[in-house]
């Protein structure tokens, strides 16, 4: 369970103080697929970076299963990111000179998992995200955008995290591939009981998530929730 309490992040820009995240509070149950929508520059990515411990809040706290991230030393935050968080970035952020399977193995290597085990799991995850087996050993820069995003999702799942943070996961993809990615995230949330928070400006994508939030001028409001059991598949 993720609890966000009065989260504030401010930046100085000359004489001005900018508050992309202003007193944000919410809770997400384990296994929820949630979305945050908002215009560009509304603070979506900043909020995501705070939840993923990529950045530190000016005030407020994030609790993961009751454990506070505030005041946690960098080494513990690194461990938190490695063990509990999976990131899916808009621009994929895969390591270009490595193959798909090597990229998926990276977080497991950092977690100290043996090579044979991580190789098996990496191939399993790539099959799960429906990447052709013959492309597993292909270099990232020789894969299409959709394929790269699938590799990025497989990498995010590598260490079976509790929370996946996806920043505009369909932003660089065509509509059909975007739909497929959303289906994939939804099934992951359902099948693996993984909490997934998707940041997007795509309303149709947001409508397919269990809970929808809107971030406007740093303030978060919940727009609505959906009964997944009643709605069936998000597609």
């Amino acid at each position, binding site marked *: 369970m993720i609890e966000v309490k009065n989260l504030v992040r401010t930046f100085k820009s000359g004489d001005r103080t900018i508050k992309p995240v202003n007193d944000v509070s919410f809770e997400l149950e384990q296994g929820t697929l949630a979305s945050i929508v908002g215009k560009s520059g509304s603070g979506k990515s900043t909020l995501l970076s705070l939840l993923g411990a*990529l*950045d530190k809040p000016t005030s407020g706290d994030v609790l993961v299963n009751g454990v506070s991230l505030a005041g946690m030393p960098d080494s513990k935050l*690194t461990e938190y990111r490695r063990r509990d968080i999976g990131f899916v970035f808009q621009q994929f952020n895969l390591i270009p000179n490595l193959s798909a399977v090597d990229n998926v193995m990276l977080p497991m290597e950092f977690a100290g998992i043996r090579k044979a085990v991580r190789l098996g799991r990496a191939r399993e995850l790539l099959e799960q995200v429906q990447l052709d087996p013959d492309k597993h050993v292909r270099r990232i820069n020789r894969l299409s955008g959709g394929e790269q995003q699938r590799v990025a999702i497989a990498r995010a799942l590598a260490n079976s995290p509790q929370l996946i943070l996806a920043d505009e996961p369909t932003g660089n993809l065509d509509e059909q591939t975007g739909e497929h990615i959303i289906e994939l995230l939804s099934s992951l949330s359902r099948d693996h009981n993984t909490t997934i928070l998707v940041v997007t400006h795509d309303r149709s994508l947001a409508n397919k998530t269990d809970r929808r939030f809107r971030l406007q001028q740093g303030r978060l409001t919940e727009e609505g929730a959906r009964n997944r059991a009643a709605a069936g598949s998000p597609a």
Partner: protein
Amino acid sequence: MSVLARSVGNAFRNKVRTAAVVAVLAVAIGLALAMLVANQAVAGKVAELNASVGTVLTVNPAGGQGFEGGGEPLTAEQATTAASVPNVSTVVGTKALRLRNADAAAAQTGGPGGLGGQGGPGGQAATTLTTSLTAAVDAGTLGARNQASTGTSGTSGTAPAFSVPITATGIGAEVDTTGKALELTEGTGLGDYTAASTGALLGTTLAEKNGLAVGSTFTINDQSFTVAGLFDAGTAFGNNALYLTLPAAQTLAELPGELSTMIATVNSMENVEAAKTALQEALGSDAADVSQGQRNLESAVSSLGSVKNISFIAFVAALATAGLIILLIMVMLVRERRREIGVLKAIGARNRTIGLQFVLEALVLVALGSAVGAAVASFASGGIASALISSNTATATTVAGQRGIPGGTPGGFPGAPAGGFPGAPGEGPLGGASQLLTSVTASASPGVIAAGIAAVFGVAIIGALVPALLTARIRPIEVLRGE
């Protein structure tokens, strides 16, 4: 994929840039290794000089030298006194003999001048002995002139063919008359040089002239000697000589306990001057003349010392350059890969893992640069060392020439075609020093190359650590920059 494999892969990400970096590193590392090789070669030569001729003092009877002059002969007691002087590590006594071919001597006895003409001054005629050996050096113009000026005055008529005497020296250790270790080309030494023996060491040309090899025999005053070994003194004069054990020579001369010279070796070059003074005081200036036979080597060693210092400074500078290249390249790579470093941190990489990855990447580049650089050094080190030495010795030779440094001691052996005995042969302004200087051979030994590469890797690690530490300062939020 392990950190190492990832680092190797990263090193070849941009092949053109990698090739350029390796080429630049190879030049710096090659230069560093070449300088180290030159430095080691020169250091070895300096040590060799210091350990041999550069630290040798020659003691002659006061007023006498070789077969010239006068005074009282040196004794075994004086050798004991000399050995007790501070900083004198060894004292080797010598007994000089002149050998005449028995047939030539018999022929000359009846002719004008007679044998006495070759005895020369010094009252040491008793040390002129007959032998079955024939000298390897022809008398020539110089020998005939010396013979005329020293032995045939007051006579007239046609003199029989003159033969150059052979130098025989009884020695107390396996060294030549300048204190330098004998270079045996065949056979063995004489074993205990302080005991009487019928073994002898012959100069290569003398043995060749007489058709002798190791195991052959010859006679001195009808006493048979066996060739135990052959040596190469490097000069025609030096190779027209033979060595016996000291007691054997004293017995032949019928002068037991008497020495022609003493060769005192000082423990280090720095102590030579003090030891010389102390030795002179201990023996007394009326009994012995102490001279530093290779005094000119001081300037030679000093010159080599300059080369050594220059090569060491150049080695350090080239090493620092290699380190700086690594530092700059890795800083550039870290800046270029900030986002990637942010990604690695975002997905849970520790700072030390990322730092190690960059250090290993730097070491891969250095390993490639070292391989090429070692090849460059193995070809270039000889030329670089020669260039360094020749430029420095040219200066030293000029300076020495202006000071008029004499080459060796004056020749004292009548009839000898060149050089002097027992002093070192004269060879121009620097004597043998210039030859010693140019004889420095800078060969790239595996040990020196390995030591140089180890130093390069050490510097590379230091150079790579700075950028590796910089990676720790990159925050994972960098990954979201530009998104």
